[in-house]
């Protein structure tokens, strides 16, 4: 796996490089002080992961992320906590707050590596072949996988794919999250943000911004908040504004 760093502050770039080298062996192809030089580099190089600062002059990291192709993963690095929700809407792998914690970075890189592996399995060839009352058929490597709805913990939209999180494994398939959601029983699966559909039965706890399922924390999108709270609590809990 390789990466680049985009940040307008020289010291922030130095810190990022040092941290990445400390926690992982991913290759740093370059560091860039602004979005346009980074974009130039991307035209002629295959980059798997970008560590992207948000608050930069002229073109912000958020603007930049919109321009990126589906095969490049993004980890935002910023001092501003208020962009977190927006970043998840852009399908970012993670959102790291400066000063960056080493363990947190390690976790983010591992997550990125996992996704890269999923993406490298040619998810285009994985297709949903049908669904019944209790399960879903997914074709992968010329084999049909039977996936019981009750085994699906949550489904994540990532670029042009959906990642199905089961208790023991993850499956990726080429389909957008909305279409996939329609194939699931609506009374059990809830859309909670732009990137997540969750199985109600696996929710362990939640607060006004996050749903917790074991080690996974899923953000609740602003648009979906009202529906989530009214469905899940029968109207007894109202979303905070």
């Amino acid at each position, binding site marked *: 796996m390789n990466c680049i760093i985009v940040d*307008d*502050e*020289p*010291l*922030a770039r*130095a*810190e990022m490089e*040092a941290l990445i080298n400390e926690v992982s062996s991913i290759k740093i192809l370059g560091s860039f*002080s*602004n979005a346009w030089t980074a974009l130039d580099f991307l035209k002629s190089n295959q980059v798997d992961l970008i560590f992207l600062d948000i*608050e930069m*002059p*002229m073109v*912000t990291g958020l603007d930049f992320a919109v321009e990126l192709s589906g095969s490049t993963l993004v980890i935002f690095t910023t*001092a*501003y906590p208020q962009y977190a929700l927006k970043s998840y809407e852009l399908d970012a792998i993670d959102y790291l*707050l*400066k*000063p*960056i914690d080493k363990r947190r970075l390690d976790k983010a890189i591992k997550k990125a590596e996992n996704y890269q592996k999923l993406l490298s399995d040619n998810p285009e060839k994985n297709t949903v072949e049908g669904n019944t009352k209790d399960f879903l058929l997914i074709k992968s490597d010329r084999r049909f996988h039977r996936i019981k709805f009750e085994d699906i913990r949550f489904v994540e939209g990532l670029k042009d794919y959906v990642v199905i999180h089961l208790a023991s494994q993850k499956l990726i398939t080429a389909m957008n999250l909305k279409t996939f959601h329609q194939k699931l029983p609506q009374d059990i699966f809830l859309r909670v943000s732009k990137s997540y559909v969750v199985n109600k039965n696996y929710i362990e706890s939640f607060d006004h911004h996050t749903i917790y399922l074991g080690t996974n924390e899923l953000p609740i999108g602003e648009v979906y908040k009202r529906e989530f709270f009214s469905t899940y609590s029968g109207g007894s809990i109202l979303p905070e504004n």
Partner: protein
Amino acid sequence: MKAELELKNTKPLQFMVDDRYRILRHVVLLVVSLVLIIYPNLSSEYSGPFNYYRWLCIYVVLIAMCYINMYVLVPIFFFTGRYLLYLVLLALLVFLSLTLISSLFHAYPDTVTGRLEEVCNEKGKGFFQGFFITSAIILITTMIKLFQRWTKDNERIAELNNITLRMELNELRSQINPHFLFNMLNGIKALIRTDHEKANLVIMKLSEFLRYQIYENNDEKTLLKSEITFLSNFLNLEMLRRDKLSVDINVQGTPEIFNGIYVPPNLFTTFVENAVKHSVDVSGGEPYIHVKFIVVGAELHFSCINSRDPLFVPNDQKNSGLGLVNIKRRLALLYQEGYTLTVESTENQFSVLLKLPL
């Protein structure tokens, strides 16, 4: 507002309004009205116990009228704006009081012994006269109440204005930008790996910077010297965050002059922050910021000049210029017309010249 406060400090006014003199005021009212009643009547044709009885009746009824007026009629009817009703009730009060006085005279046992005639003769003229005199006295007490109320209202309005101004000034003061702080900490974290000495220096500068923002920023005035140190720290810290930026702060004048000058804290920060924000160069030039302080006669001149890249457009166009609007408002609140601010903008350079009275 100031004139009002000065007026309030004069003795007679304090006596009329201040709560400390409340009891004394009542004593003066009681004594003065007693003198007013007895003095013109000393040479009265009446004498003996009837005379004392007469004074006592007039005095008690008059005082009762004054207090009914001040504590019942004025607050309930006059201050609530029902003026006509107030006047009618006041006339009724005076009329009833005078009727009471005259019937008290009649009730005196001695009147039966020959004096009743005279009193009755006088009654028509006396009653009419008494009505106007009494009304005038009562209206004086109304005026006292009105005056007290007026001064208190004025005080309240002045205080409210003061509080609003102070709050506005506080809001216009620049606050610590948390984003700056966290980026600084991230930068220091990087320096700790590579350059311990520099990390040390940056932590000291950042501490000074924070101390100034947290403590001195709340004072009304601060030494110009510490303001300059603050700006220099700020610019030096900003230099660390940029690939290219040259900065210089030029202070012209002897240290003695600058040691004696006090300015409102953070007055120049907005200009310097703007200079930092707008001096970004996207086409490989050499960005710079020049800050200068100089004392000219009885004025302090501050200038801040920064390079501009015509190709550079800041992200937050919406908030652009808000800082300048705020600082203009703050300057107007602090100096009224006494300052001059000149802002010049060319394609490659932006400059601000601020002249303040010392």
